[in-house]
């Protein structure tokens, strides 16, 4: 696989990708310096907006018609490690989403009463910087190191700002799972580098274009695939590696950590960016197993979601259920499939972020998210309820939300790859998601206020809370009725991946005319 690159000087007057990563870092320093000043919060909002502008500029500069990696920057640091950033359509999409979600988190800080905390705001920008780095880097080791940094930052966030009786155990579980995930990822990364050194007589490198030139022997591919796949699978999270999520969701921060962990699907991104191009044989070999587990995961998680009494845990299982749908799409491995799945993963990310933010807004009033103690909120918080519902509908793939076109593409691809039965099962998984999301929505917003809670006063949403809700609604409906630019962005992404897999013999290919 040959990956051509356009240097940043060809397209832009300044190194966009570096600026995108350095601006949040500068923001961290600036916000810490402004500690205790009045200007702190306005500055944070301004910086978040600036990052969005930068991301928009990246979108403007980026040429979706070209198949090469664009705006590339390269700076050798160590003999085996180089700073190497470049963007394709997939990166652009995730960079935009990161910028938008960070702004929402900064806005939400005020709702959470943390708008005066320089440490919190700086932490948000630090996480943003690592995420942007992960989405533009072309170096596997760089990615792995950044994900380690991100997980530590989020652990700090959880440790300092989650206030729940059991956050010790949640924290421990999080660190255990994530630590193991990182170790697996690191081991897989080193094995790939080592193989590269073996082939090229001691030239260590982890850059994607270098790695893709040195073929991995089949017996090694399986091992490396499982190291990387499990490492990322914990992060995604993939059934049955999801054990940390319900606990963290229940006892961690409601929105902030969850939004970064679940809103931006770095694991999915890394699968498509690194694993699929480097280990095609292993991916094809284990494709059916992965899909089988994903199918089980859809319904396992949906069933558990239906049994939850706490909205926070319910949303955690909702995430597990819909990521399983996503994985089926990803492993369909065609252009349509990748286009659909990546769009779907950003949709799910935005929608999950919306659900978490709105749950957070509700929690600030009720001090609980136990479903039996909620109810009657729609009359008090109509905008919040609407945003919650629209986010839920996006996950279900309702027409008019971006989930529809994405799921539609994904299903088309899955029919071709796996036949009708598996695809129908995946579509029914969406119906199951509708069941628990609608049920949760009704319990929280439409059902009458439970006895014993009658004295509760629900404050009307503040301007800022309304703003967040309206932003989420606009983003979802706006992209939902007009998906064309995003699909177009992904049209030439994936660097020849579909061709790579189209050439390989498939195990369970279905003829076009089915059933």
């Amino acid at each position, binding site marked *: 696989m040959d990956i051509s690159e356009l240097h940043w000087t060809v397209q832009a007057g300044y190194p966009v990708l570096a600026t995108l990563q350095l601006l949040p870092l500068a923001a961290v320093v600036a916000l810490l310096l402004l500690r205790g000043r009045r200007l702190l919060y306005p500055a944070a909002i301004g910086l978040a907006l600036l990052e969005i502008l930068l991301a928009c500029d990246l979108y403007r500069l980026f040429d979706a018609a070209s198949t090469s990696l664009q705006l590339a920057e390269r700076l050798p640091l160590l003999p085996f490690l180089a700073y190497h950033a470049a963007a394709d359509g997939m990166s652009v999409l995730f960079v935009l989403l990161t910028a938008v979600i960070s702004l929402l988190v900064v806005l939400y800080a005020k709702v959470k009463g943390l708008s005066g905390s320089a440490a919190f705001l700086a932490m948000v920008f630090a996480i943003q910087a690592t995420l942007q780095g992960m989405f533009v880097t072309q170096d596997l080791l760089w990615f792995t190191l950044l994900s380690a940094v991100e997980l530590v930052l989020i652990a700090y966030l959880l440790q300092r700002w989650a206030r729940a009786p059991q956050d010790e155990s949640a924290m421990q579980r999080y660190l255990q799972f994530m630590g193991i995930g990182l170790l697996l990822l690191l081991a897989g990364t080193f094995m790939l580098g080592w193989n590269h050194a073996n082939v090229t007589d001691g030239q260590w490198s982890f850059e994607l274009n270098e790695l893709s030139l040195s073929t991995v022997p089949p017996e090694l591919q399986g091992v490396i695939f499982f190291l990387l796949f499990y490492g990322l699978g914990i992060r995604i999270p993939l059934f049955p590696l999801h054990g940390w999520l319900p606990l963290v969701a229940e006892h961690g921060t409601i929105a902030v950590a969850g939004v970064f962990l679940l809103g931006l699907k770095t694991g999915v991104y890394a699968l498509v960016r690194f694993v699929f191009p480097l280990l095609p044989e292993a991916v094809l070999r284990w494709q059916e197993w992965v899909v089988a587990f994903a199918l089980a995961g859809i319904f396992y998680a949906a069933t558990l979601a239906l049994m939850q009494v706490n909205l926070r845990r319910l949303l955690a299982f909702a995430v597990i259920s819909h990521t399983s749908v996503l994985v089926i799409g990803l492993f369909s491995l065609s*252009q*349509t499939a990748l286009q659909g799945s990546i769009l779907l993963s950003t949709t799910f990310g935005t929608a999950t972020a919306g659900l978490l933010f709105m749950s957070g807004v509700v929690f600030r009033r009720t001090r609980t998210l136990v479903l039996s103690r909620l109810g009657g909120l*729609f*009359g008090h918080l*109509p905008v919040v309820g609407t945003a919650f*519902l629209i986010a839920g*509908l996006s996950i*279900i793939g*309702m*027409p*008019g939300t971006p989930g*529809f*076109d994405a799921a*539609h*593409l994904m*299903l*088309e691809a899955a*029919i*071709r790859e796996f036949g*009708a039965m598996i*695809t*129908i099962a995946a*579509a*029914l998984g*969406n*119906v199951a998601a*509708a*069941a628990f999301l*609608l*049920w949760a929505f*009704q319990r929280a917003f*439409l*059902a009458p206020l439970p006895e014993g809670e009658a004295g509760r006063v629900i404050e009307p949403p503040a301007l800022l809370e309304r703003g967040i809700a309206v932003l989420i609604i606009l983003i979802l409906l706006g992209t939902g009725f007009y*998906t*064309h630019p995003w*699909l*177009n962005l992904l*049209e030439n992404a994936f660097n020849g991946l579909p061709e790579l897999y*189209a050439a390989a013999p498939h195990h369970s290919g279905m*003829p*076009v*005319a*089915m*059933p």
Partner: protein
Amino acid sequence: MPEAGFPLLSLIIMILPVGAGLIWLAPNPALARWIALLTALLDLALTLLAMLRFDPASGGFQFVEQHAWVPSLNIEYLVGVDGMSVLFLPLTVLLFIAVILASWTSVRSLPRLYYTLLLILESASLGIFCALDTILFFLFWELTLVPIFFLISLWGIGPHRRYAAVKYTLMMLTGGVPLLFGFLLLAFNHAGTATGGITHALLFSYPELLASPLPAELQTAVFFLLLLGFAVKAPVFPLHTWLPTLAMEGPASIAAIMTGLKLGVYGLIRFTVPLAPAAAQEFHWLLAGLGVIGILYGALLALSQTNLRPMLAFSSLSHVGLVLLGISAFTLQGIQGALFQLLNFTVVAGGIFLLSGFLHHRVGSTDVVSLGGVAQRMPLLTAGFFLFGLAAMGVPGSSGFPAEFLLILSALDSHTGAGLAALAGVVLGTAYFLGAFRRAFLGPMHNTAVIEAVDLRRRELAVMLVLGALILAGGLFPNAVLELTRVSSEGWIERLAPR
């Protein structure tokens, strides 16, 4: 397909959401109903214009508008109407106007949201009748679910309204799965066996899909997928269980819309049969069988109800069965009767459910146990209920007569046994309606709520007079309707003929 210079259909669909937006700009929530009413009246004028400008001599689609929507998927914004769908537009709008007027004073909580949702539902329903791109159709199809979910959950009159809302939504979403797969299958067939860049070869345009023939084994799959998808909505036995729940728990306005607009049967006529003509003919016995079961099962259950609203729901199931039987004959009388009956339902089923809503609003129940003697206090309401009931039974002079006559005629001709069963269904229909009518409206009064109730108010009476006039007009001058649907129906039959 002549292209229209003026985007009439888009305007018909789009002014409703605009009106819904205006509702939120109005300073006073009490203005919401006025804005909703005026928007709907304007829409009625537009749909009447469409009906007048429609050329009944042409069998093709008219007022066609075509724009690229999602080019990478080859999905288009493609709308148009033919003789089979054009009449649904004014009647749908009329039904919504009746619903808005019927809700005039009875909806007190969150009026802005209520009328917004009604207008969005109206827009999506009109979109269903106009859409000629299968994905656009699916978009409108699923879009109806959100307003309905809210309308049932928030304004339902039964204690289990939220359960009813979830049940309805989930059944419809499940039904949506085979529907979408049917449409995808059709698109794949067109894309052929080409690999790579498949999305560009996929095709969702209905007129073009009609032109590309389908291999036999694929026809069966498409037929069953689309049949299943539409049967849930129609509803066809045994997928009807949401309807009685909805009739009991939902607001009368939604029950009126759901039984008045037979979107599922429209889908069967529009998509299932023409897109898989050979399979439809092969499985004509299935359609006829489902129809007969629906007729008899619905009628028997209606007979055993003690509450007017579930009784009306099961009677609606019975009527859908008759329409299905008419379709399965694949004759001109059959399809024209089916279309006539669907149009008739908009007025009859919509009107009678609204009347039962009026009754519930006054008495607090529609159970015959707590009614009795309604006629003494509410003669106008009783007269309206009786008139609509006569139309539902198909008494000559009402619009139900030509419809049922054509349906039974074609059924007797094509499936004689089934036709006889349909006749029995008509007799049962008379029995359950008159039985319930006698117990609820005649006899002595024993409920104080009935004694204190007032008759139809002027606004309610006006709605019923308009709907009643349409029933009489349809019954006395059926030819006007039949002429409008004839050419398109002939085209529909022709697709089936060569096999």
